[in-house]
């Protein structure tokens, strides 16, 4: 069986790739996708911990945590895309560097 640490390393890598994307990408939609990548890293972490260390016939808490995270991620994407579209309508761009009405 694949050891637990492999999953944790995968999750950590995925998290770092997502974080890099958030910090480096200019396109708002790409930033949103990177955030989703980070959330998936969290899900892998939770499921791996739950399956390897804490799975009993009564403890479903890790599983429930992941289901709740799914719902939150979906809502977050919906809200995020709506905001990005409204920003696009006023500015005709989604590149973060073009949003310069507010600075100082």
């Amino acid at each position, binding site marked *: 069986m694949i050891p637990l640490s492999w999953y*944790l390393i995968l*999750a950590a890598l995925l*998290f770092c790739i*997502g*974080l890099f994307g*958030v910090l480096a990408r200019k396109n*708002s939609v790409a*930033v*949103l996708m990177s*955030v989703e990548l*980070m*959330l998936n*890293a*969290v899900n892998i*972490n*939770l499921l791996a*911990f*739950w399956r390897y*260390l*804490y799975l009993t016939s009564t*403890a479903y*808490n*890790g599983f*429930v*945590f992941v289901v*709740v*995270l799914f719902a*939150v991620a979906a*809502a*977050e994407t919906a*809200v*995020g895309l*709506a*905001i*990005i579209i*409204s*920003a696009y*309508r*006023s*500015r005709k761009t989604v590149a*973060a560097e073009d*949003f310069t*009405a*507010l*600075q*100082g």
Partner: protein
Amino acid sequence: MTGSFPAAMLLKSLPEISLVILAGLVLLLSLVWKKRPPQALTWITIAGLMLCLLLALLFALPVKGPYLIWGGLLKIDVLSFLFRMIFLTGAALTVLISVERQPSQGQGEYLALLITSVFGMCLMAASADILMLYLAIEITAMPLFILAAFQFRQKKSAEAGLKYFLYGAMTSTVMVFGFSLLFGISGQTGYSAIAAALEPDRLPVSLTAGIFMLVLVGFLFKVSAAPFHFWAPDVYEGAPTPIAGFLSTASKAAGFAALLRILQEVFRASPELRFGLLAAAAVASMLIGNFLALRQKNLKRLLAYSSIAQAGYILVGAAVGTPLGASGAIYYLIAYLVTNLAAFGAVAVVSSNTGSDQIAAFSGLNRRNAALALVLGAALLSLGGVPVFAGFFGKFLVFASAVQAGAVWLAVIGVLNAVVGLYYYLNLLKVMYLDPVPEGSGPLTVVFPWKAALLVCAAGILVLGFIYRPWYHWADLAAQMLLLH
């Protein structure tokens, strides 16, 4: 100790349940009641929020000793009770300030989103479980993302919403990564079980420090403290003014309520870590907030930087972590609620009359509307921590707690920063009272809801400054109960 009788649990969470019903009701009324009077929904919302406050006083008074409900998800104690009062009052004042002379489109959605976010805040202050906390933070944040972008036809508001959303989504995800590690080391999501697994003999300190930093990212964003403060000035400037006021008071208070609880109940085994990281964040916030506020031309931006600095002062109390520190932080948040809402309310009045929120628009304010200048002046002096105004006791208590805990250097840095802060607040007073009235500006009209909100805030600033014993008693009780395990 878990509550076993569901009816009792339902009664304890009656204020939250009625908030959800109120949000649905307001949304429904805005759809079906087409010929309503322009301010009807506003008054219904305020009546509903006051009803929730009354229900909390009648049925959800904190009992002796902490009391967990819903299988350990929520904790009913003085802290959650007190902060529920803060959020409901703050929301009611924000609704009053939000009244425009012309009823704008989407009023129903605006109010329903605001109520939903208050619902999330009440859960944040009460949650005793990391899953519940994450959910509560998201319930609070998502309506606020939309509200910040609510005037989406204006470039600035859409941009503010986008920046707030991208920052918020990123930091909350970093925090939930920390939560997944907390679950990994304990297999539980309840605070007390996690705290037991975090004992130093069970987990190396370096690992605890790593997890603590990940979790702290989300909280520092929420309270707009350095180094996660970059969003605040842009979002406050671009968002609708009442929402900026709400973000800087109730949302910040919710962040601090959850932070105080998680510090005392989860990370209680590592006080050095807490003090080191939070004191560093506090010093950075105070310096960045105060020194960048000095060169601002826009009053909303200035208030944003001042709010970063205020987060720094409150973090001093949280970093110290003694009963005095915690009660000082809570007292500060109560005082800050009325003070900053008064300031943002005054900005809303002036900017809706003149169409500008630059500092220049405020020159000679006392000759255009003396009462408004008086309220804004009191709010600025209270922000600066001048005695007899509410803000003074808040600052006094957090700095006293630092001295009491032996961190005199932290109190000294705080006091020096408060002096820098006083400079730009007094400079604004000079603009309002001594500078000439700009050409072609008439007297300002103030509609009744604005008058009511500003009057309540001004009364709060004075009452909290003159009579501080009962408020301090409550803050102290909340802090004592928080530190009691």
